[in-house]
């Protein structure tokens, strides 16, 4: 067992443990913070697998943007900061489904690969990733901007009151 294997195992354990804490804690804010640990551990996994750019993107987008968004949502909706009892209701159906799905997938993957080894492709540097994204995957990449534009317009349509309406008109 090499050092990389040990590191993968340790980071995996951290990710799973933090993930468990996310769903079992009674504090909404702490759940968000445990999510940071979980996602950062996943970023560490990417790093061990030499996918450096993916790791940093994971840190930037998930640890940075998504969790911050989550905390903002908690703040803006005036959700309780302390322990909330309704987060502690018996979750055995969810535990059953989640645990079942997790175990099932684990068995599936372990059974599929057993001890077979897959050669790691060359390191996932930013250069290589960029060449692929702007090479063979350029059309899907550009189409993602269509998706972002549609989402942007949708957000405006759903949330913007009429510009230029007088306050009186708005009250009426």
């Amino acid at each position, binding site marked *: 067992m090499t050092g990389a294997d040990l590191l993968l195992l340790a980071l995996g354990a951290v990710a799973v443990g933090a993930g468990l804490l996310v769903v079992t804690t009674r504090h909404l804010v702490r759940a968000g913070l445990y999510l940071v640990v979980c996602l950062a551990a996943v970023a560490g996994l990417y790093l061990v697998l030499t996918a450096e750019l993916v790791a940093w993107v994971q840190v930037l987008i998930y640890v940075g943007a998504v969790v911050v968004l989550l905390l903002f949502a908690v703040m803006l909706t005036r959700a309780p900061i302390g322990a909330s009892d309704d987060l502690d209701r018996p979750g055995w159906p969810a535990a059953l489904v989640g645990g079942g799905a997790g175990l099932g997938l684990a068995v599936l993957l372990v059974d599929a690969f057993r001890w077979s080894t897959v050669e790691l492709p060359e390191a996932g540097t930013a250069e290589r990733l960029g060449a692929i994204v*702007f*090479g063979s*995957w350029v059309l*899907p990449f550009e189409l993602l901007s269509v*998706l972002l534009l549609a989402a942007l317009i949708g957000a405006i*349509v759903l949330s*913007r009151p009429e510009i230029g309406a007088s306050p009186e008109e708005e009250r009426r």
Partner: protein
Amino acid sequence: MTEIGLPPINYGAITPMLILFGASCVGVFVEAFVPKAQRHLVQLVLSLGAITAALVTVVWQADTRTVTAGGAIAIDGPTLFLQGAILVLGVVSILLIGERSLERGGPFVAQAAIVVGSDADRNQTVRQPGATDIYPLSLFALTGMLLFVAANDLLTMFIGLEVLSLPLYLMCALARRRRLLSQEAALKYFMLGAYASAFFLFGLALVYGFTAGTPSGSGDNGGGVDFATIAAAVRNSEVSPALLYAGIALIAVGLLFKAAAAPFHVWTPDVYQGAPTPVTGFMAACTKVAAFGALLRVLHVAFGGASWAYTPVLGAVAALTMLVGAVLAVTQTDIKRLLAYSSVANAGYLLVGALAVNKQGLASTMFYLVAYGFTVLAGFAVVTLVRDADGEATHLSRWAGLGRRSPLFAGVFTFILLAFAGIPVTSGFTSKFAVFGAASGAGHTWLVVVGVLSSMILAFPYLRVVVMMWLSEPGESTPSVLVPGGLTAAALTIGVAATLVLGVAPESLLDLTNRAAEFVP
């Protein structure tokens, strides 16, 4: 520093998508710069013009057979036929969306941000013209649908799925009347849709794992998610097939959700009921074509070699879908929910055709998609016409006696319902006949038996509505049937005419589907 090489892109092949995308961007600018009074007309003309132009380019390249843009897009017979179908049905949907004479300001809310039930909301319900952002959103959705049926790898397909879904979620939330119901529908659709997308992504990851060690198009042995590589891996991969089966199952969950097949149909009645009726028609017609187009390509091209493995499972899903749709349609008391369950049952019939993994199955499924799309659009067009002071009267009890009050529209709706029930001389009969023929040709006799049985169950709710319309006396509360404005009249005429023509003389379209029914490898 390596030189970044752009893959050769056949711009002709992606022109329809580019036209629609460009038009939706122009539409956004129209929202910003054109005065409010003229926006609706400008947007309507722009959308209709763009869809027509895209349709012309699709027809123009009818003989193109190519894989382009680094293997992301496949242009072949099914792609072009389904893109054409989506665009034609899209024109009809835009006609319904653009109707403004039935209700002051049209069927869409002016400002979705205003709190439901406030004074400002009551004011905007009766006074303000509806938001015209709906046009760019529908063009975005259509762009996504064109991409979805053309995608030649799972990643592009996933992006197409998102591009078509996101605008649809938003469009569901924009009803002018019964806004809470509409917003609930949108939220439900969004949540469950995001969940289904996650299944698709996980399936994609598993299939990618399965292709490990298979030479891909780009030359290395790292596998890939394009359909040619997957098909090669299905033929001779040394990785355990359990990964493949799990991958197919998860991808199918994502696609069947969009297609509204049981047991992934639970969103359908609520969303169909809550969404503004023109948007419901758009979803029932165009989204169904797109979802089944993608499903056909995945089942035929990528996983065709494993059809013996997925046919029993998906066959059970098809049987369940037909039965659930038919049985639950019997219990409905709301016309939009009834049509929603009918759409679930029709997803089952389509799946029966799609599971016949041969040319005949492909051709008959494509024919069914077009025929059903026209009929369902005409059906929802009639639903928009039956109104009282509070908007559309969708409860079935209100439709009693409608035949006395407005024989013409009750007659038209009767014809549409008979088409849904699959009576001869309507397109419903020809299309059901075609898919059942293909299924029995492929040896799936038991699916045909379930299909015929469920059609018989499904005929009951349709006929009940017909009897109610014609044999009851109109009461005090029977709503009036409005005289449709030009746009709805046009949509209704196109839908009914297509239903009749495809029932009486289906040869030319059947011929077209037969000629188109071949995927590029």
